[in-house]
């Protein structure tokens, strides 16, 4: 089911577009029908999730219309600042410069943690290597380890795959794994790293190529690739990513997913954001391979921006 998710997303988007057109016609006759129109854009990682949420919410609240598009966290936040969308999905926290831009434009962006995501490191099933430390993954992507032999695998060259630099997943992986969370470290990906424009591109190449190593959101991983168990450091336990290991923070490459609004949300947008962290919406999170918020976190959903 996950394998066919991408065409499905397009199909749903088409359906949504078709629906909203029809609704628009109806609205002109019955002005009371659609009271609110929420536009959401941003992270490609979150697009499946945001669509599923929007679909369910519209079923329950026929007076609210929600449109969702992808494009990347950066695109979503710039669209929010430009005023073309009401909510931006982001798989990374807003950057200092983006915050400044928003403030220059006279806005006061609000941040909401809506779900969690884990990045899975994946290899081809033929590859005998099945566990790596963060330091080893970092060394691979820095270009210091170039053969699987050095990691106990076969004598094969390592082909490094990464998302494009405009992806929130790329930036998150760079900071957390390649630089091991050290913000003073200015290392970048080895220049021969292949930058693929989509999650599907990475999955396709890893599925096919026994030399490849890649990373992608846990929600996009298909059974045809092998997920690597990751340890925080040498001597520490190797942990496979799963709902449990992300929620108990034992899996090291996990992050929060955000929604941003321009101002303190009011009306329909506030109702929607409240619903998104409800138990019902968080069940959808789990069904899509992401990790739901623990209920204890839900109360403190509004994080302070500094």
């Amino acid at each position, binding site marked *: 089911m996950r394998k066919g998710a991408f065409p499905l997303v397009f199909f749903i988007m088409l359906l949504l577009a078709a629906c909203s057109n029809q609704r628009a016609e109806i609205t002109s006759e019955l002005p009371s029908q659609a009271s609110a129109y929420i536009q959401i854009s941003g992270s490609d990682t979150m697009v499946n999730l945001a669509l599923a949420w929007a679909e369910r919410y519209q079923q329950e609240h026929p007076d609210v219309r929600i449109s969702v598009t992808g494009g990347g966290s950066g695109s979503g936040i710039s669209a929010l600042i430009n005023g073309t969308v009401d909510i931006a999905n982001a798989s990374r926290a807003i950057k200092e410069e983006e915050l400044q831009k928003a403030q220059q434009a006279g806005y006061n962006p609000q941040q909401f943690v809506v779900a969690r995501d884990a990045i899975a490191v994946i290899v081809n099933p033929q590859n005998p290597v099945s566990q790596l430390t963060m330091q080893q993954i970092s060394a691979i992507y820095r270009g210091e380890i170039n053969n699987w032999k050095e990691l106990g695998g076969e004598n094969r060259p390592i082909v490094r795959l990464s998302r494009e630099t405009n992806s929130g997943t790329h930036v998150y992986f760079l900071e957390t794994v390649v630089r091991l969370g050290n913000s003073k470290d200015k290392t970048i990906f080895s*220049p021969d790293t292949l930058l693929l424009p989509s999650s599907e591109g990475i999955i396709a190449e890893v599925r096919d190529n026994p030399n490849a190593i890649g990373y992608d959101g846990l929600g996009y991983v298909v059974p045809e690739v092998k997920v690597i168990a990751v340890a925080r450091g040498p001597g520490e336990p190797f942990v496979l990513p799963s709902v449990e290991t992300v929620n108990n923070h034992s899996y090291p490459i996990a992050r929060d997913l955000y929604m941003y609004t321009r101002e303190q949300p009011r009306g329909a947008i506030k109702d929607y954001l409240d619903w998104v962290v409800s138990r019902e919406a968080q069940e959808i999170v789990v069904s899509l391979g992401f990790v739901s918020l623990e209920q204890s976190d839900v109360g403190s959903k509004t994080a302070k921006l500094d």
Partner: protein
Amino acid sequence: MLAAKQQNLTELVITRLIQLAGYLSILFVGLICIFLLKEGLPVLFEIPLVRFLQTTWYPIEGYYGILPLLTGSLIVTLGAILIALPLGLGTAIFISEVAPNWAKEILKPLVELLAGMPSVVLGFIGILVLSPYLRRLLDLPTGLTALTGSLLLGWVAIPTIVSVAEDALNNVPPSYRQAAWALGATQWQTIWGITLPAARSGVLTAVMLAVGRVIGETMAVMMVTGNAPYIPSLLKVFISPIRTMTATIASEMGEVAKGSTHYQTLFLIGIVLFLFSLIINIIAVTISSRRLKRSERLLS
């Protein structure tokens, strides 16, 4: 008298409209040019030129070396032309000189159909079929290489080469061929010794137009070349992953903040691409106008 006046008026209006259309297209090219320069050139005052002539492209951390992107585009284009020229020229010669009429009538529209193939479809074929096949065949670390891009772009370039070269071959006066046959030349000798040299400048124009088509191609390249911004070693030049200028603009323009250094640098890359196609077009025009002069000389 009145009818003639009215006709004059209609003629005047139509002439002016056509004139306007002509001037408008010049105006638009000019405006695009100004827009490119306005968005791209200011970055040269912000960042010294030397920083662009580096080999590391990682703009989100301030590395703006565009050399790997330049070599990437040139490698893929060179490869595509090396593949498309023999195939395209061969097809053109076959259609124009050898094929019977019924075959011509089937082949010509088929070649034009090839030109209409959307490049994203080619990209899919590349990523799902061609790249895994090449990796196994040549025992490469990965199938996402410059060669894969060149093969797909060769496909894109073939229709351009075929239709322009075929026109050039058709324009060679029949008397040339008749004279060659009268002297006892075989068909191959006629093609290789007489027709092809006579159509040489047309063939060169075809190649130049194909280069222009290939260097600006984006989607297929972005999907199959791996997009790794580094300069491959000379031995592995075609079997390494590369990143082209067009793929860089396409994949990064969506995310950048308008007016930032990164944004302006992407426009600078656009200017470089624009210069490339300008030079290629100037060469193509020079070659084809020279052909005109020579044929005038021959006729006189």
